[in-house]
């Protein structure tokens, strides 16, 4: 159990900068998910913590001890890899017990701990099998057991679920959370799957291009995305953005097509400032053409079962909404839209930053 402090960490390969001045503190016993698209540096950050990559500048401390110059084995971290990385020639028991064998734990004790750990992840019947004889989910469990048995201070997960099929992924997600609740080791979990991030995390870290965009609980990040990037990345289907200019006189956003969206509060934007109005698909309602705030042209309706996803265009800007209505108008039909502006977000068009002063005015934060 340990706190991880990442201070001003930079990582470069030759002249390419992978990560620039990252600061992050992961509290003792916390489950943190690092979320981002491929190439954003999230795996690199994990590998820097593990000691598999060298830190170019800055420092990382685990449990108060700076670990920059420590070997992976001295850092007290255990890691679960994306491809499991099981030793193919060893049985499950040997795989799980290998770290103990290297550490020189006597055989009797080792076997007892292997048996106990295997039982806790449901592998008791497979101890004599080789990894090649196991299914994907079972291999994943072996990888977990191999990490658990060392009783590490810190658990690191590098996209461990991305090789599993959808159903198994949900199941293993619950399993990982259950194990975390049991042993309460500090855990860092890297993924590009926002569902994994939202469901597993105590706190989410959203990364983009080697920097941290936002840190917060899943609810905070979903309800108050700090930037255009986070707003567009979190949430499925993705948030809609309508570019426009702020008009102070009308306290409204004038969209590029000429439509005017009046705001319920003062966003603190200057007159004529270029802004992006963000609204999630579930916060838009349908009206008859001409009776909403704005009109849109229908492109495709996707049936999701419980609801329907309408893909529309406002002028040339793609826009989507989720509705429970079963109506199925023809492609190209025009429809009116009403935006629930209590749930709208306003972003600075130039910097992409959330306009913080607008939050109170625009948005009623839901009780938690």
């Amino acid at each position: 159990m340990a706190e991880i402090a990442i201070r001003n960490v930079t990582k470069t390969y030759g002249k390419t900068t992978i990560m620039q001045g990252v600061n992050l503190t992961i509290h003792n016993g916390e489950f943190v998910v690092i979320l981002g698209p491929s190439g954003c540096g999230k795996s690199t950050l994990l590998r820097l913590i593990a000691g598999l990559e060298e830190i170019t500048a800055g420092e990382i401390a685990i449990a108060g001890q700076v670990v920059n110059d420590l070997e992976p084995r001295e850092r007290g971290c255990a890691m679960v890899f994306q491809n499991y990385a099981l030793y193919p020639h060893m049985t499950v028991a040997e795989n799980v017990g290998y770290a103990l064998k290297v550490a020189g734990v006597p055989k009797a004790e080792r076997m007892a701990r292997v048996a106990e750990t295997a039982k806790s992840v449901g592998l008791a019947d497979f101890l004599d099998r080789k990894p090649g004889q196991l299914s994907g989910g079972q291999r994943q469990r072996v990888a977990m057991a191999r990490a658990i048995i060392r009783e590490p201070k810190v658990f690191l997960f590098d996209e461990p679920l991305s090789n599993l099929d959808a159903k198994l992924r949900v199941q293993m997600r619950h399993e990982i959370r259950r194990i975390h609740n049991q042993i309460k080791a500090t855990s860092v979990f890297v993924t590009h799957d926002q569902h994994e991030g939202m469901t597993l995390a105590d706190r989410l870290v959203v990364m983009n291009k080697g920097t941290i965009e936002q840190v917060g609980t899943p609810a905070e990040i979903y309800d108050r995305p700090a930037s255009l990037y986070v707003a567009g990345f979190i949430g499925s289907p993705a948030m809609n953005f309508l570019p426009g200019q702020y008009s102070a006189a009308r306290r409204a956003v004038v969209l590029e097509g000429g439509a005017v969206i009046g705001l319920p509060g003062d966003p603190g934007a200057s007159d004529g400032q270029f802004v992006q109005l963000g609204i999630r698909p579930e916060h838009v309602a349908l009206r008859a053409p001409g009776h909403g705030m704005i009109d849109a042209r229908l492109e495709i309706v996707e049936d999701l079962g419980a609801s329907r996803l309408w893909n529309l265009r406002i002028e040339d800007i793609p826009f989507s909404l989720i509705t429970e209505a079963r109506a199925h108008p023809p492609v190209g039909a025009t429809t009116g839209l009403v935006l629930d502006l209590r749930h709208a977000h306003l972003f600075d068009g130039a910097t992409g930053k959330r306009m913080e002063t607008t939050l109170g005015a625009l948005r009623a934060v839901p009780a938690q």
Partner: protein
Amino acid sequence: MIERTPILNLATHLILAVGLVLILVPIWLAFVAATHDLQAVNSAPVEFWPGDQLWPNLKEAWALSDFGQKFVNSFIVAIGVVVGKITLACLTAFALVFFQFRGRMVIFWAIFITLMLPLEVRIVPTYAVAANALSPFQTIMDWTGISWLLNSLAGIEVSLEWNLLNSYTGLILPLVATATGTFLYRQFFLTIPDELVEAARMDGAGPLRFLWDILIPLSKTNIAALATIMFVYAWNQYLWPLLVVTDRANYGVVVVQLSDLVPDQLTTGGGTPTWHLAMAATMVVMLPPILIVIFMQRWFVRGLINTDK
């Protein structure tokens, strides 16, 4: 790729059959010759079916060539080459693949280039080195002036000498120092996923532990393939043992000895050529490599095609 092409199938089988005949007929003829006596083997139409003289021929050939000691020597050399080669290749490839150090690629290419210089090509310099294994150092010291310095300062005449002629070391070492094994191992080590290396590091295994616990067990089939190839290669060596060994009685190997049985002007002195003895000896000399290949075949093939993960 699976195709249904009866004509092509027939053609490929035909080629296979022809190849088989081309390889087997000479061996069959050698075997037949080994089973006849002197008259039969030298009579005009070539015998195509075995006679009854195999055992007497074998005994005579064995006694004539003093094969007992030669077989021991051949085994020592072949096994020495196999063990030396596997150890050297494994360690070299391990260093080249898993460690980052200055000049890594230069060293790799230097090793790789020796593939183009087999022993036969560089046999004269190799012989010079074998005659005095320290001569390269002597040369370096002479050239750089260290010898002169030592001579003038301390009055010591530097003359390094380590003779490898007529020794097992001399027979084995030059055959060990080739790139084939290193290359095979390197290619195999490159297929080991990075994550496996990292998992071992996370588990606390140091480099040597990783080599011993993970790489070597995983490369068992490669070891078998390399061992088979190197055994046959070392067993069949002719030129090098011929050159480096003058003390035949103690250090001669079977292949060189076998050539003495092959009849020519020198051995028969114009008499009737004793092909039956030469062929009987050939049968004996061929046996160990054949047994090794048959015994190792299963592993050997797996090691070369490398489907076993």
